[in-house]
């Protein structure tokens, strides 16, 4: 993914996507919580994506997507 020559925000200029920026912000909030809210919130930190291409009504092979940009 190419970065714009003049990025509008500091995070875009550093090569981050909006999703990465948003998730970093959410992560920062979770790190500052009291127990037991923190323990519960940290379970939401990890998530992953799988991608599969459908063809002729048949789902193709599932591929793990490393990072969402």
């Amino acid at each position, binding site marked *: 993914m190419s970065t714009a020559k003049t990025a509008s925000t*500091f*995070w875009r*200029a*550093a*090569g*981050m996507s909006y999703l990465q*920026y*948003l*998730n*970093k*912000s*959410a992560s*920062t*909030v*979770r*790190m*500052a*919580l*009291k127990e037991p*809210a*923190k323990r519960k*919130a940290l379970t*939401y930190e990890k998530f992953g994506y799988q991608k599969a291409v459908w063809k002729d009504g048949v789902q193709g092979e599932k591929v793990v997507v490393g990072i969402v940009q």
Partner: protein
Amino acid sequence: MTLNFSLPHETIYAGAEVSQVIIPGEAGEYGVTVNHVPIISQLQPGVLQIIHEDGGGETEKYFVAGGYALTHENSVTDVTCPEAVKLDDIDPDAVSKNYDTAKTAHASAELGSLAQAEAQIEMETNKAMGAAIGLTLA
């Protein structure tokens, strides 16, 4: 007006009738009541305030980490955030400590690097959390 407030892992309000919602928009804080002009705004880390119709107009506050708020023509407002927490769940000592750690990391990171951007996000979010719970972080 109707409020839909959801997070990826939880729906906090779906079709709730409220009196007013005060939203921490990127361009500034604004309040939405019935018949508000349709608006889409990106949120900054800050406090979302929900003023309920009954219960004597009680105000419920959440600290949101960002997201989007859309107000439609029919006075329905959708707020979606990656994370929202009650102010009581925020630990002031952790906020203060994490802010200081991020500030140090920001100062020592290379200008324009990913590490510096991440440190800046941490600083800004912790500063906003501090402001929400009455802590002034410089």
